[in-house]
Each structure stands twice: as structure tokens, then as C-alpha cells.
């Protein structure tokens, strides 16, 4: 009898606990809104060091250990840093600038102005153009044309923001700074969009300003980047990828406007210098300076869209004989002092390529052509674009002026640029290397 009486309340207690748990669990999916950023969230003002130019004086000896980018490692306490980091500290104040030196008042100004111009993660926008400044760069350029041409309207960006948050955020970070939680643990580190520099582009502008075309960004998202941690996002719909391209462009606009003006302030001890675009202004306010940069970026991105690289026609046939003959000529160009001189950086065809810092302050090596992995794509057109225009941010120069065929070569149907591309395409395959060596007296092993 005694045991029986005890049982009933304990059964009830268990039932209550189970019911409460079930109710709680069923409510959990309603917590927060997983689809979008919180409406009150704003982009933080940049606080990580800015790299001004390609760091060429200081040379790393290894890839950096995972967990920090080389730039973030500068702030680590002494016992944790490597020899390379100690060396890199010499660049502070010369090529690397720390926004900690910014006055708090300036930071407040940045937070306010950038939010006014670019909105928040949940409601991104591009606004605050000065039409007069745009006009000075290009007679026909208006804010509406920029927004329409680069698809930076609010509806597209809001969609892009959602997809970015879901798919890209954890590596590329909230502001597109390449410092999402997983970004520190992969090498190469994810791209930091805030410098406005992209490696793999097909636009034929001058090297200093070359922006990617929408097609380039779309291609990278679709196929991923082999040899890095960027996978393919081909399972997204075509419209989603289009929205993402717009959002990445937007993050780059916001980031670069902030980067360029902040760099200006840090270099000039608190003062901003004018780009000579606003009338009658020598010492612009931050707002004017941001507007100037917004105009410059709009102009460059627009111009990139309209100026794709036009490759010279591929002058050779499909046969392996033609290919190998071309590759053999490419070998000469690759090694010659005056023309290509590719070998000076791609030492031993990249197998002994030296380490160096790039414009983001991360560590890169020129490609090893023997492993057959080409990050910007292995299609002939992709390789051609890179030889033609170089790779921005890493010190690969453009060869459009030196390697394109002159009239004499055109008459003979020979193209040194395609020869180099074919040589690079032949290098990964032992069979083709052997043939080059035997049939064309090319001295490679």
C-alpha cells in the first residue's frame, strides 16, 4: 500500500516535466529571426590595421600559423608571436596604420556618416551621392545610372544581405573583412573586400584601379576557387547569386570608402586631403571626402563593367602538335629576361617560389605550375586574362603591353601571350613535359 501511494505523485511530476520540456522545445524555433540581421545592428567602424601598399621591404619566411592573420598577429603579446611578426612590426607607421590612433570623435563621425550613406546590415543601401562630383568624372554618370548599372538598389541588397548572412558570413565576416570566425583558420585567408581589390578580374582597366566585373564575381561564386577554402555555391539559384554579387559590390563600396579616407587621415596626421573633385575645397570634411570616394568607386566599377579584356584570337589549331609548338615558344618567353621573365618570381616554375606579403598583409607565393591547380580558373581564357592584366594585390604585373603580338607576329600567326598560356597549361602533365623535352628541346624536368 505504502509503495503504491508514493508512485502516483512522482508519475505526475515526470509528466509535468516532459510536458514543459516539449512545450519549450516546440517554441524554440520561434526565437529570433534566423532569416535576416537584427534591424538594430550597425556595421562597426573599422578597427583592424590598414595596409597601405604592397609590403615589399619585409619578407615572410613561412606561412603564418592558423588562428590569426599576419596583421592581427601584430597585436598579440610577445610570447605568442613568430619571428615574421616581429619583422612585420617594422612596417607599422610606414605601410601599416592602426586605426587606434583615430580620435574618438572621428570614429563617432564615421559611424554616423557611413550608416547614413550605406545603411545597416539588415537595410543596406548606397546613397548620398554628390551628382556634381560624379559629373566631373564622367559627363553621363548619374546616381541612378550607378545604382541601376551595378544593381545596388535597396531591394536587391536586402535580398543579398540575407543570403550573405546565411552562406558567406562565417568566413568573410559582417563587413566583408575576411575575418569571420572560420576565416582565421583557413589559409589563404578569405578575401577582405574593404580594399576594393580583387585578384581574378577580366576588366581591361589600368592596374591601379581594375575592379571586377559582375561576370567575374558570379563565376567565382559558381565554381569556387580550387586550392583554397572557397567552395562552389552552384546550388544557389541564378537570382540568388546575382543578389550576392550586388551585396559583395556593396560591401566593397562601403569598405573602400572607409578604407581610403581612414588611410588618408592616418597618413596625414588627422587631416583629409581632397581628390580635387569637389569645387573650391582644399580641406574637405569627412562627408565630402566619403562622397568623393563614392563617386570614384562608382566610376571605376562602372568603367570595369564596360571594359572587358578583349583577347586576341587564338591563332593555333586544335592539334597537340600545334599546342606543343606554341608551348615551346612559351617556354622561351617565360624564361627570357626582357619579355616575360616570369621565372624571376615563379622560381623553378613555381616549385621554389618565394613567400611574400600581399596588399591585404596576408602571405602568398607565386603559383607552382607543376601542381595543375589554378585558383582563378584553369580555362585558357582565365589564364590569358591573368597574364594580360596581372593579379591585383599580389605583385603580379600585367603583360598586355609586352606580350601581345606585334604586326610582324600577327602576320606569322604567332602570339607570345597565348604561347605563355599554353606553356602553363602543358606544365602539370608529365607526359607533355616529356614530349616538350624530346621533341622541342625544351630544358625542363
Amino acid at each position, binding site marked *: *500500500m505504502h509503495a503504491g501511494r508514493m508512485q502516483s505523485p512522482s508519475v505526475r511530476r515526470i509528466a509535468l516535466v516532459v510536458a514543459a520540456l516539449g512545450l519549450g522545445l516546440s517554441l524554440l524555433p520561434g526565437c529570433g529571426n534566423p532569416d535576416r540581421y537584427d534591424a538594430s545592428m550597425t556595421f562597426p567602424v573599422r578597427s583592424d590595421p590598414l595596409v597601405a601598399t604592397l609590403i615589399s621591404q619585409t619578407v615572410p619566411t613561412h606561412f603564418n600559423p592558423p588562428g590569426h592573420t599576419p596583421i592581427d598577429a601584430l597585436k598579440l603579446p610577445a610570447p605568442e608571436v613568430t619571428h615574421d611578426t616581429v619583422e612585420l612590426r617594422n612596417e607599422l607607421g610606414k605601410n601599416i596604420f592602426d586605426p587606434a590612433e583615430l580620435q574618438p570623435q572621428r570614429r563617432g563621425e564615421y559611424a554616423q556618416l557611413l550608416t547614413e550613406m550605406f545603411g545597416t546590415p539588415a537595410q543596406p543601401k548606397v546613397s548620398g551621392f554628390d551628382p556634381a562630383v560624379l559629373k566631373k568624372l564622367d559627363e553621363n554618370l548619374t546616381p541612378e545610372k550607378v545604382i541601376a548599372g551595378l544593381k545596388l538598389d535597396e531591394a536587391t541588397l536586402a535580398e543579398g544581405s540575407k543570403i550573405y548572412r546565411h552562406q558567406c558570413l562565417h568566413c568573410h565576416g559582417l563587413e566583408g573583412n575576411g575575418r569571420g570566425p572560420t576565416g582565421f583558420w583557413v589559409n589563404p585567408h578569405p578575401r577582405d573586400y574593404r580594399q576594393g581589390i580583387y585578384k581574378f578580374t577580366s576588366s581591361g582597366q589600368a592596374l591601379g584601379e581594375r575592379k571586377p566585373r559582375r*561576370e567575374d564575381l558570379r563565376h567565382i561564386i559558381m565554381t569556387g576557387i*580550387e586550392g583554397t577554402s572557397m567552395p*562552389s555555391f*552552384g*546550388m544557389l539559384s541564378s537570382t540568388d547569386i546575382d543578389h550576392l554579387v550586388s551585396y559583395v559590390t556593396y560591401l566593397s563600396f562601403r569598405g573602400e570608402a572607409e578604407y581610403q579616407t581612414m588611410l588618408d587621415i592616418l597618413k596625414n596626421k588627422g587631416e583629409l586631403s581632397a581628390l580635387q573633385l569637389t569645387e573650391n575645397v582644399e580641406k574637405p570634411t569627412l562627408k565630402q571626402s566619403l562622397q568623393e570616394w563614392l563617386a570614384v568607386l562608382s566610376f571605376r566599377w562602372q568603367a570595369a563593367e564596360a571594359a572587358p579584356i578583349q583577347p586576341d584570337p587564338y591563332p593555333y589549331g586544335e592539334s597537340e602538335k600545334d599546342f606543343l609548338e606554341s608551348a615551346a615558344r612559351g617556354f622561351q618567353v617565360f624564361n627570357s629576361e626582357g619579355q616575360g621573365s616570369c621565372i624571376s618570381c615563379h622560381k623553378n616554375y613555381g616549385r621554389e617560389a618565394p613567400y611574400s606579403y600581399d596588399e591585404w598583409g596576408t602571405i602568398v607565393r607565386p603559383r607552382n605550375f607543376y601542381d595543375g591547380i589554378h585558383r582563378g580558373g584553369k580555362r585558357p581564357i582565365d589564364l590569358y586574362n591573368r597574364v594580360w592584366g596581372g593579379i591585383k594585390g599580389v605583385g603580379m604585373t600585367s603583360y598586355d603591353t609586352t606580350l601581345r603580338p606585334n604586326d610582324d607576329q600577327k602576320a606569322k600567326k604567332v602570339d607570345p601571350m*597565348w604561347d605563355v598560356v599554353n606553356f602553363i597549361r602543358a606544365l602539370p602533365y608529365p*607526359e607533355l613535359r616529356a614530349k616538350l623535352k624530346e621533341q622541342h628541346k625544351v630544358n625542363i624536368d
Partner: protein
Amino acid sequence: MGQRFWGWLFGIVLFAIFVFTAVSPYMGWGLPPKASSFSGEIDFLFYLILGVVAFFYVLTEALLVWNMCRFAHDPNRKSRFVHGNHRLEMLWTVIPGVLLFGLAVVQINAWAAIKYPTSLVQQFDAGRGEDYLQMEITTRQWEYRIRYASPDRMASWSDKSKAKHDFEQRLPPQRDDVFVVNDVHTWKGQKTLCYLRTRDVGHSFFVPAMRVKQDALPGRTIPLWFQPIESNTRRSGDVWLDGYREDGVQDSRFVWDLVCTQYCGTRHSLMRGKLYVHPTKEDYLAWLNAARADSNRTQPEKQAAATE
């Protein structure tokens, strides 16, 4: 709460599960369409095992529910403990043992035909390598990167002089290879052989419609094969759409996913591709040539940019 409440609750829930499982094949909630040459064997084994499980499920759960209803309301009744009863323990060890052994015997031929690479090697040694469409699938976080050999090289696949067990040597990288991300293409009736590799952690290659699942292990190249007996693709201009039955009717059961079933990192759930089975070899070659033209592109894609 009445003392019989729990007995009834368990009884209803367990019976609902039984009914749900029993009707699911007839409601289209069961296995994907029989699109693979393995469908017969695999589905038979699946339903055989399901049948055995269902029998014991009904037996044990009915006993459980009956006991709950029969004895729960009597507080004076003492439980009988059977701990240490050798006869009972032998019984519930030997019966499952015999059943499992029986299932092992029943499935052994299917396993050998599907999974055991020696059968592949034998076919290659008999000069029948050309029977297979060969491709290399390199997985990484979080994608399948697939290398298709050019059709010009199909003849060399059956080369007997190549090392016996070295699958990699049968399909060395070539200049005219075609690389495609996440999309596996083959054609109806074709035996398809994939060399599965991984660049980083363990991944898996699972196509439910083909009844094939294989893990990718770091440092190893693992062959797997399947043979589709249905097609699911229709050509529309220069693109190939999946989800179409051979008679041209659209059917969502003919969208055949390729998914990773080995947890491989944060984006594991998004690591997926698709299987395109073309109706004929000509269709496959048309697709492959289009893909190859793109791989060998020497001029920018003008039309593509204009139509998008």
C-alpha cells in the same frame, strides 16, 4: 490520470508508427524510383529487413502494451525478475544471431557485385574497361569537383597494360579533361565508374536514386559504380534540365540528389550535387562537348552575359 492511460498512449503511438511505415511505400514516401540496376537487389534486401524488423516490432511492442494495460492497475502485484535466467538469455541471443547470419548470407552476392572492386578489376582485365564511363570525383569542404575524361580517350580506358589495382593510373590527368562542380552526368544504361577521393576530411557520395553510398577517406582513391536504368534529363537549348521522366513528363521524384552523408564541417548540409542521366550516349556526348568547349574557352562568353 487513470492507471491504464500510459498503456493506451503507448499503444496508440506505436500502432500509428506501424501504420505510417506500412503505407509509406504506397503513398510515395518510401524509396526513390527504381532507377538503378541495383534497385531490385537493394530494395528486396531493404524490404526483407524491414519485414523482419516489423515482425519483432509488433511482437515486442504488443507484449509491452498488453503488459502495461493488464498489470498496471494492481498495486498489490509483485514483479517477477528473470535476471540470470540462462535459458531466456540463450534464446534472445541465438534468435537474433541466426537471423543476422541469415541476412548476411542473403545479401552477400549483392555486396560483392556492388562494392567489391575485384569484380571491377576482373572486368578491366578482360578488356572491358570501355564498358564503363569513368570519372574522378574529388571531394572537399564543401563540394564535389568532378573530372570527366575527354571522349577521345575512352579507348585507352580498357588498356590492359595498366597496373592491375591502380585505378588512378587508368585515368591520369590530361590536358583536355573537363572539370565540373557538383554535377554528375551519365546516360541511361551506362555503367558509371567513379574514383572517389578527398582533399581534406572524410566525405560521402550518396545518390539515393542509384542506391549507392560510399565514404571518401583521406589518402585513398575508392572506386564505386552504378548503372542507371532510367533517364531524368531533358535538353532545352544549351541547358540540360533534370526532373523529367523519359516520356517527357515532369516529375519531382526524378530530381536525383547527390548528397554528403558523412558529417564534414559546418556547411555539411549544403554539400550536395545532382545526378543527370541523359537518355542516350549522344545526349551525353553533346553535353560533354558543350562542357569541354567551355573548359577550352579562349574568348569571353558574350551571349551568355547578354541573355542573363
